[in-house]
């Protein structure tokens, strides 16, 4: 360890900056010990560079490695998985800084910087971060250039310029590769982070869950309609159905002993009867749109009822849900056509009827009694449902995010006692009552509404738009959507949660930031950033297998691997060729003047006639050869020589005047040519 490689000062500046910037995004959400360790190690390395400190010995370094690995294990419980793995990587990377003994180590640090930088995309994937990554990429490249620079006195700014130039040159090729390289499904998936809790729907609805969700401003998904979007009150984004109630929570039900073809249909498979019928029943208004779904770690997808898809990545369920074939870990884009005015009067199989009528054997006696009494008075199922909705509307029920706690008999307590609740309370009470009255019913969970970004005319659906409603099976009408919340607080459906709560005099829920985020400027800014984020997601992140296939087959017809390889080769080749030609063009020589062309024409003439082929001969030098070999041509040639010498060497100012001299010289040359031929 006698000699330590000194990174040249002009390169070290970029290397240090690149390392810090590559690590920074990871540190933002990292545990405190990692932040502290990174700062200490980087500062340590800076002090070594300044000669204030020495490189630590092997024992100390080993100890630090074990300490940091231990800390990772302690705070993540594992060293596998993206979050823990990246933390370990960042820690080890910072340690490597204290190990730059040789030039080789500096290269390792540079390559690791690139890698650590790339892992930023595991955490963030938006447009701003991409710009950041590109800038840091440029800085790290500048460090790499600096390390390889032989001179000591060079200015570090030069490296950055060279790096920028390299990146600009690489851009066209990058675009070609982006558009053309086949998107292959990953061979393995990163283990998902169970610890990393995502806000969103879950497969059961326990008390208070939706109201908690409603307080999150996080984006759930964006929707881009081919035409006009449906009005606000019709935007019910169906995600899940809860058919099973155990007295306390509603949850998804997977019926046992039922053929899976009875439950789901995957495009491309042979359609089961229920799907065949559903397809034949299509009528009325239809909407075509593309959904850009944020990762949920769950397989369900959101769409307007009734969705139809023709992509084998998705499945349509019998209860009109859309499902992905695997969990959604990345931004997920899909196209849907929804028919919103269909009558869903399919025959209800016995198992489905049974499932949607099931209730716990006891509990909520008051509610059950009222349901039975009302059913008798109503006469029909429809009348019963309407009476239920009227009851919510006319009695003093309140819509609130902060309902009082309910007792064991949840439905009784809510119906007759508290009467203050959020959509989940109304929906589950309604579903309970319907089932108690012998009407098949289930709860549908999803989102309702959505804000229109006027810049891009796409819809933004946030977690705060989370909503649950009810579907009931009525004779002759099939499944009918009912929203008890709309009966209690029509503003929620017409204008959104925020307005609804304000109307109810409840504004605390959104906290003190409201005044700030509500200002017109901030709203405009929010729309703006959202719009560019949307474009980014739509065109770059959302550019997946499907979009690529559509684009390529639209341009080149059917895509076979051979054809794709040829297209890629041709595209990359032509980009490189174009850049090569640009370089040539930049280095091109100025065009010849007419008198220079005249000289070379005459020269060619004499060389061809075998009179003179000495490259160092000017006109005078050639004259001797012409006189000796072809006296006939000598006269004209001598005149030509004189003109040339006069114009080019003695009186170049005459060249500008022109005046038939060019013509005259050409005539003389032809004369010489004729005499030479003879």
């Amino acid at each position: 360890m006698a000699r330590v490689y000194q990174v040249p000062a002009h390169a070290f500046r970029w290397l240090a900056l690149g390392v810090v910037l590559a690590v920074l995004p990871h540190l933002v959400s990292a545990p405190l010990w990692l932040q502290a360790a990174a700062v200490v190690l980087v500062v340590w390395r800076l002090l070594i560079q300044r000669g204030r400190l020495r490189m630590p010995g092997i024992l100390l370094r080993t100890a630090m490695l074990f300490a940091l690995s231990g800390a990772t294990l302690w705070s993540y419980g594992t060293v596998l998985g993206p979050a823990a793995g990246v933390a370990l990587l960042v820690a080890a990377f910072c340690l490597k800084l204290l190990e730059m003994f040789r030039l080789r180590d500096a290269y390792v640090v540079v390559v690791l910087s690139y890698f650590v930088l790339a892992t930023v995309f595991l955490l963030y994937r938006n447009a701003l971060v991409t710009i950041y990554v590109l800038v840091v990429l440029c800085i790290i490249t500048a460090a790499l250039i600096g390390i390889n620079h032989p001179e000591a006195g060079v200015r570090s700014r030069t490296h950055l310029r060279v790096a920028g130039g390299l990146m600009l040159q690489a851009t066209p090729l990058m675009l070609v590769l982006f558009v053309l390289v086949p998107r292959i499904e990953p061979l393995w998936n990163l283990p998902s982070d169970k610890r990393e809790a995502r806000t969103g729907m879950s497969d059961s609805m326990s008390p208070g869950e939706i109201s908690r969700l409603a307080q999150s401003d996080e984006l759930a998904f964006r929707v881009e309609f081919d035409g006009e979007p449906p009005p606000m009150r019709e935007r019910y984004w169906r995600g899940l159905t809860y058919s099973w109630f155990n007295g306390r929570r509603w949850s998804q039900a997977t019926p046992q002993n039922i053929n899976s073809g009875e439950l789901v249909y995957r495009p491309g498979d042979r359609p089961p009867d229920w799907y065949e019928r559903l397809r034949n029943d299509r009528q009325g208004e239809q909407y075509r749109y593309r959904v850009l779904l944020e990762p949920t770690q769950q397989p369900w997808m959101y769409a307007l009822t009734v969705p139809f898809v023709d992509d084998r990545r998705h499945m349509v369920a019998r209860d009109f849900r859309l499902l992905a074939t695997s969990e959604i870990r990345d931004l997920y884009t899909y196209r849907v056509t929804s028919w919103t005015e269909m009558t869903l009067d399919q025959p209800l199989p016995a198992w489905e009827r049974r499932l949607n009528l099931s209730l716990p054997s006891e509990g909520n006696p008051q509610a059950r009694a009222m349901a039975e009494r009302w059913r008798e008075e109503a006469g029909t199922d429809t009348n019963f449902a309407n009476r239920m909705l009227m009851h919510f509307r006319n009695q003093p029920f309140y819509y609130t995010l902060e309902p009082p706690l309910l007792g064991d008999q949840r439905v009784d307590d809510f119906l007759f006692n508290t009467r203050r609740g959020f959509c989940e309370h109304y929906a589950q009470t309604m579903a309970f009552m319907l089932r108690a009255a012998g009407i098949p019913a289930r709860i549908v969970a999803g989102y309702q509404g959505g804000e229109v970004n006027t810049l891009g005319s796409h819809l933004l659906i946030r977690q705060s738009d989370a909503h649950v409603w009810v579907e009931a099976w009525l004779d002759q009408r099939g499944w009918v959507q009912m929203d008890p919340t709309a009966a209690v607080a029509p503003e929620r459906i017409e204008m959104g949660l925020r307005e609804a709560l304000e109307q109810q005099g409840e504004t605390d829920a959104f906290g003190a930031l409201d005044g700030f985020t509500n200002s017109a400027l901030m709203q405009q800014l929010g729309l703006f950033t959202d719009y560019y984020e949307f474009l980014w997601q739509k065109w770059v992140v959302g550019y997946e297998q499907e979009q690529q296939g559509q684009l390529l087959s639209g341009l080149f017809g059917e895509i076979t691997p051979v054809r794709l390889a040829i297209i890629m080769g041709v595209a990359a080749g032509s980009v490189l060729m174009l850049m090569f030609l640009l370089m040539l063009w930049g280095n091109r020589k100025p065009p010849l003047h007419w008198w220079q062309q005249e000289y070379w024409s005459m020269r060619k003439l004499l060389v061809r006639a075998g009179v003179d082929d000495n490259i160092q001969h000017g006109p005078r030098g050639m004259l001797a050869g012409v006189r000796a070999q072809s006296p006939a041509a000598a006269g004209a040639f001598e005149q030509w020589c004189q003109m040339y010498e006069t114009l080019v060497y003695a009186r170049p100012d005459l060249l500008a005047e022109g005046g038939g001299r060019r013509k005259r010289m050409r005539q003389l040359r032809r004369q010489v040519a004729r005499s030479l031929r003879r």
Partner: protein
Amino acid sequence: MKDVLARAAAQISNVVLGKPDQVRLSIACLLANGHLLIEDLPGMGKTTLAHALARTFSLDFNRVQFTSDMLPADIIGVSIFDPDTRKFTLREGPVFCQLLLADEINRATPKTQGALLEAMEERQVTLDGATRALPEPFFVVATQNPVTQAGTFPLPESQLDRFLMRISLGYPAADVERQLLAGEDRRQASLALPPVIELPALQKLMALVTRVRASNDLVDYVQRILACSRDSGLFVAGLSPRAGLGLLRAARAWALLGSRDYVIPEDVQTVLGPVVEHRLSPVSGGATGTATQQLLEAVPVVRGS
């Protein structure tokens, strides 16, 4: 005016027999205000040429025979204490003249060579802190034995660069030599030459040289020769910009000798050898032929596409 130059050339050629090109080149070198290095074996007429030049152009002439024990003061001069006036008076050295013949310059030590070469470049001499300008014109003709001879200090390349031209005379042709043997003593004859061009006329001619036209195409040719000497890989180091300026100046003087007020490529080609050969060292194992030949064959007279 121009036939004066022809008469001067003829007169010198009467003394330096059979070497018309070298005579004209040395006159061109003088007109171009450059210093001349004559490299040859002893007894080839180097000193005779220098004498004849001085007489013909009526220049104040000094001659220094360089030896290995010579000191800079022997050339530049020295301050001497005069007991009568009790003051230092400067005794000027032989360098204070218009044409200095530095005979066998490579016999002196580098220190002495350096003193002379500095005077050549600056055209002034600093003695005891006082700077004294040398006469105008100031023209050095140095002679040099080929370095293979014993007891010589070869001039380093940087100092060779100070000489505008290097020529060598070589053995005379047979008939010229017979004429030489039959005739009178050439050295005596050279001392008896009448002046052809007086100082004002010479200065006028020298001013005229700077006004000889070098057109864009010609300058381009010169530049391409310089670039080729640097980029072709034929030489260890390319020609300096000073060499390029010298080449163009020499070509102008040569054009004036040819009674033209503009330079043509042939002028450049003629002076190219004397001007660049001593500044270029070919890469060993490179192409055959002199540096001049290699350059001329590589660079077309007119720019091609």
